[in-house]
């Protein structure tokens, strides 16, 4: 019962935070430097790890598909399998998980530290709403950066699959054939579907991490606990939302 109340309290706090941040949306143009800084942290610095991870996910997908399909002569469909899997599911999902692990943890740690060391209280004392300068730029930045990260993840994953499918001996699928089936079965609607998912996941991850960070009380140990909690909650929410979004978007 106590845990249920804690969950409901967490949801309520997150919604309250979102509404307050939304109320400050008109002030965003005046916070452009802060917004750009968050874009840099969320998007630009996350790009290398997203690219590496997506390349190998695409490659592994091609490898597994080639191994399974080769036995019944359907290996030319590897392109369609990798294309659809990356665009609809794995691209956005992997980007969101990376975001939760790399950016979400950093956000929670930063906000929790500010809260624990009373910097947030100082802002409130100076009549500066923490939602305005701490939450709104991050939410806006993630909304702008997630589609970019997701499309890069898709393309890198597709190319990773093509390279693996071509270079592995028992598959040896020509890139032309790979991309021909990829183009035949993957439509832009599938990519758009994945971008919507990525947008939703990123927004929820940043909101949850900000909310948990700003609710931290205690000392350095609680900061660590908040970070762990933020990442775990983010991951669970990503997967739960993934199911419902997939069902809704089919």
């Amino acid at each position, binding site marked *: 019962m106590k845990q249920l109340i804690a969950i409901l309290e967490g949801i309520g706090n997150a919604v309250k935070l979102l509404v307050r941040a939304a109320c400050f949306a008109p002030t965003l143009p005046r916070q452009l*430097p802060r917004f*750009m*800084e968050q*874009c*840099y942290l969320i*998007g*630009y610095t996350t*790009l290398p790890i997203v690219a590496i991870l997506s390349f190998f996910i695409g490659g592994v997908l091609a490898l597994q598909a080639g191994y399974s399909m080769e036995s019944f002569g*359907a290996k030319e469909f590897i392109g369609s399998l990798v294309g659809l899997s990356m665009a609809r599911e794995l691209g956005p999902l992997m980007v969101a998980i990376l975001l939760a692990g790399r950016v979400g943890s950093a956000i929670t740690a930063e906000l929790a530290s500010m809260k624990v060391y009373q910097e947030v209280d100082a802002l409130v004392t100076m009549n500066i709403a923490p939602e305005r300068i701490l939450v709104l730029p991050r939410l806006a930045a993630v909304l*702008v*950066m997630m*589609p*970019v*990260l997701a*499309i*890069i993840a*898709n*393309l890198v994953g597709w190319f990773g699959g093509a390279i693996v499918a071509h270079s592995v001996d028992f598959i040896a699928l020509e890139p032309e054939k790979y991309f021909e089936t990829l*183009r035949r079965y*993957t*439509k*832009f609607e*599938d*990519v758009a579907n994945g*971008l919507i998912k990525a947008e939703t996941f990123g927004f929820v991850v940043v909101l949850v991490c900000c909310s948990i960070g700003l609710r931290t009380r205690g000392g350095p140990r609680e900061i660590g606990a908040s970070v762990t909690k933020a990442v775990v909650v983010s991951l669970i929410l990503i997967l739960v939302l993934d199911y419902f979004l997939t069902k809704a978007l089919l």
Partner: protein
Amino acid sequence: MTTTQNTARVGLFFLLGIALIWVSYETLSDGKALKSRGYNLVAGFDNLKELKQGDDVRLAGVKIGSVQATRLAGRRAEAVLRIDPAVKIAGDAQATIGSAGLLGTNYVAINLGSASVPPLAPGAEIRTIASVDLNTIMIQLGELGGKLEGALGSMSEVLKGKDGQPSLFQRLDTLLTENSQKVNTTMINLQEITDKVNRGEGTLGKFINDPRLHDELLATVGDLRKAASDAKSVVSNAQTLIEQVKSGKGTLGALIYDEKTGNDIRTATSNLKEVSDKLAKGEGTLGKLINDDSLFREAQSTLRKADRALDGMGDSGPITAVGAVAGALF
């Protein structure tokens, strides 16, 4: 690292993302959703099967468009086909729903039609052929299997026998047992005949074994060949003759093909008819000669008189002969 540099990187990164989204869009959808180039054709079917929006439209196997929409129209289903504007489809071309393999998607296959038929106008309806799907084939195969099973059952009954009736083999066995003597005799006779043939006895034996027959046959074939050659020459001559006649040469040619000769004949015939008419009517000397018997009578009388005069001359002397003739005549 300055804030300005970071901002520039973010801007570049964002633009890269936008460009990649655009490239994906152009590559995967050929930018058709915005441009929507081409013209529509309507294809009506009894059943669209698994055909859905976005499936290919292929002309003789080459992709020329896609299915824009599928809809119900009264008692049939219609597929709206979006065709590339550069492609013209003949008015008598026919569309059918094809399937790209057992696992593949469906597509609309259009044949080339006739080059001479004017192309279909935008919005026109294309002719369709109902294609046989896998389920129908399976049902037909099932029916065929049933019939085959029935036929095999009947054969089995014949072979095994039914309702106490002896089987086919039993009947054959009985037939052979009962007629073994006759069969043996027949076989012996056959053996004798073949022996005779081998020895060259009888007509058939000679026919097969005697080389003279072969030579005669060859000679006959040679004669036949010569006769055929002569016939060919005759036909060739006849052809030449006909060509000459056709070209109006010679009397026959002139008679058939020369207009002047025809006119002359026509005139001659007309004149002849005129003469015969006059003769019939008794006009002219010849007509009177034929139709008027007074001349005959006068000639008869004159002859009679001459006869008498000659008689008179015989009785009198030569001196009075002239006077007698003159007296008899005048």
